[in-house]
């Protein structure tokens, strides 16, 4: 029958063969682009956008209110701005190159690119694109570059970074009698050093009765090998997404213990609150600083927390809720960012001896203090206010401790006390006013939903509402992805 068709209608046969071949080529081409058999591919997007053949891989910026309208290039006027990258398969690493034009004032010295690591806590891993504080410092001299690392010294006490690291490991730096925390700052660089409490303080076990909403990270200082944390949670069940609870204990970035509580409620948006509890216990810990990560959604409140150790400090953010009466807490940072979550939370708050007005709901205010005091007091008359800074918070001054080094961020001030700065940073190159910055991310473990990785561009201090007219324009985003080849995948399966 086939041979009869071939001999009787040779033209039709040839025509169909041609069209079938075209379809086969079409399918194979898209399968090639889906599989990426050699494990390397580059996606890019340029502005202004011409006629697009497809939807592309790099999706538009959001939210719209942080972008200027009707501009040739996307103009970022608020912080942060999000975009996503669609990839047809997972990859292991991404080198992101951004070409941009900078019309930013001196109050916004930082441009960073973030990759979404955790959806529940909305945690982004931030990498530098531009740090004008370091650029200024590098222009002034007193620094040396060792590979990707910049090492700055005020007095040239060390010949190189290795000699510096050796002293840091021993816990004592030259020209730095108050300890590394007082005279060393870092940026995008993980320096390890043995942290010791400034003075021996005996702090009794702590019971925190202040409810806190949403994810929290905190440091605990374990001095007697044991740690027990008992949490009571309230799941508000206002959000339709399930609310699992995870509590992780880390030592120097290594996971030591993890406790998980699934959300088995078939009606997670019922509005009926549920009480839950979870405990974490470790009996054979080496003394030192540990980090506790409480991974919960904003639909869950930590109702209370009992800790066997009294040195406990919340990292960067707290969201106190359900307070009876005034609220008093402490921080070590010289600024405080506050956002009233409801109109009922508007108030005059007290920070480091000054009153500040929290006058607009849902808007983040930044209050700066010139107080030299290492510990600053915060007083609130109403709750449901999200408090953030680059330091730590605690509910008593004696509990407060900060084992981290100062960060060269937008709130950094180079004081005479700072003797050393270590940073992993490459300044952007500049051509005809356009800057090109590049950074690399490890995509293993990054959050990917519907084939998309989440990114953000962070310019701390850039606010659309302040009327200063500063902005950043994007001309091009290029992402070079690397992952396993098809052969490596097949090998792994065999």
């Amino acid at each position, binding site marked *: 029958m086939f041979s009869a068709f071939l001999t009787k209608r040779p033209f039709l046969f040839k025509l169909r063969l041609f069209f079938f071949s075209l379809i086969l080529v*079409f399918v194979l081409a898209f399968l090639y682009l889906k599989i990426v058999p050699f494990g390397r591919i580059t996606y890019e997007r340029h502005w202004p956008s011409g006629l697009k053949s497809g939807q592309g891989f790099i999706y538009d910026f959001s939210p719209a209110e942080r972008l200027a309208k009707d501009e040739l290039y996307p103009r970022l006027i608020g912080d942060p701005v999000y975009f996503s990258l669609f990839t047809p398969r997972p990859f292991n690493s991404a080198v992101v190159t951004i070409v941009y034009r900078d019309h930013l004032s001196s109050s916004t010295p930082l441009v960073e690119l973030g990759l979404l690591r955790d959806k529940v806590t909305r945690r982004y891993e931030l990498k530098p694109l531009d740090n004008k504080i370091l650029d200024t410092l590098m222009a002034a001299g007193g620094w040396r570059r060792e590979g990707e690392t910049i090492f700055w010294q005020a007095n040239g006490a060390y010949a190189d970074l290795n000699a510096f690291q050796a002293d840091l490991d021993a816990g004592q730096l030259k020209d730095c009698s108050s300890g590394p925390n007082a005279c060393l700052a870092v940026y995008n660089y993980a320096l390890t050093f043995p942290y010791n409490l400034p003075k021996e303080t005996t702090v009794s076990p702590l019971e925190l009765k202040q409810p806190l909403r949403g994810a929290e990270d905190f440091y605990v200082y374990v001095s007697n090998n044991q740690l027990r944390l008992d949490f009571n949670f309230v799941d508000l069940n206002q959000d339709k997404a399930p609310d699992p609870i995870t509590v992780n204990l880390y030592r120097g970035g290594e996971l030591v213990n993890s406790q998980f509580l699934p959300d088995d409620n078939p009606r997670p948006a019922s509005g009926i609150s549920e009480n839950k509890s979870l405990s974490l216990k470790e009996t054979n810990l080496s003394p030192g600083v540990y980090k506790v990560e409480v991974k919960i959604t904003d639909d869950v409140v930590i109702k209370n927390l009992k800790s066997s150790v009294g040195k406990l400090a919340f990292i960067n953010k707290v969201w106190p809720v359900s307070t009876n009466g005034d609220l008093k807490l402490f921080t070590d940072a010289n600024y405080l960012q506050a956002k009233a979550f409801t109109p009922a939370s508007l108030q005059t708050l007290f920070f480091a001896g000054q009153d500040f007005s929290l006058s607009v709901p849902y808007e983040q205010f930044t209050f700066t203090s010139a107080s030299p005091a290492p510990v600053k007091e915060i007083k609130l008359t109403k709750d449901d206010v999200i408090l953030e800074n680059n330091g730590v918070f605690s509910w008593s001054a004696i509990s407060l401790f900060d084992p981290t080094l100062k960060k060269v961020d937008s709130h950094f001030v180079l004081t005479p006390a700072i003797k050393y700065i270590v940073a992993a940073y490459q300044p952007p190159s500049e051509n005809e006013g356009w800057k090109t910055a590049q950074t690399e991310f490890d995509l293993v473990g990054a959050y990917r939903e519907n084939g998309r990785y989440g990114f953000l561009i962070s310019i701390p201090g850039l606010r659309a509402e302040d009327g200063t007219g500063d902005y950043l324009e994007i001309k091009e985003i290029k992402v070079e992805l690397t992952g396993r080849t098809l052969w490596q995948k097949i090998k792994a399966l065999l």
Partner: protein
Amino acid sequence: MRRAQLIAREIFYFFTLLTIVSLILEIIWPHIILAHFNLNWLFSLWLLSALFLLSKK
């Protein structure tokens, strides 16, 4: 004339099959085609080929 009609019909069949294959690929692996190519162009070509074929009949 008959040959032109035959080619028009085969082109219509080609676009029909290509559209079906594209839709199946998109259902199995979302965005595999849409990221690179706007399927509206393919639908338009398919529609044009169908209209041309009808006009010839």
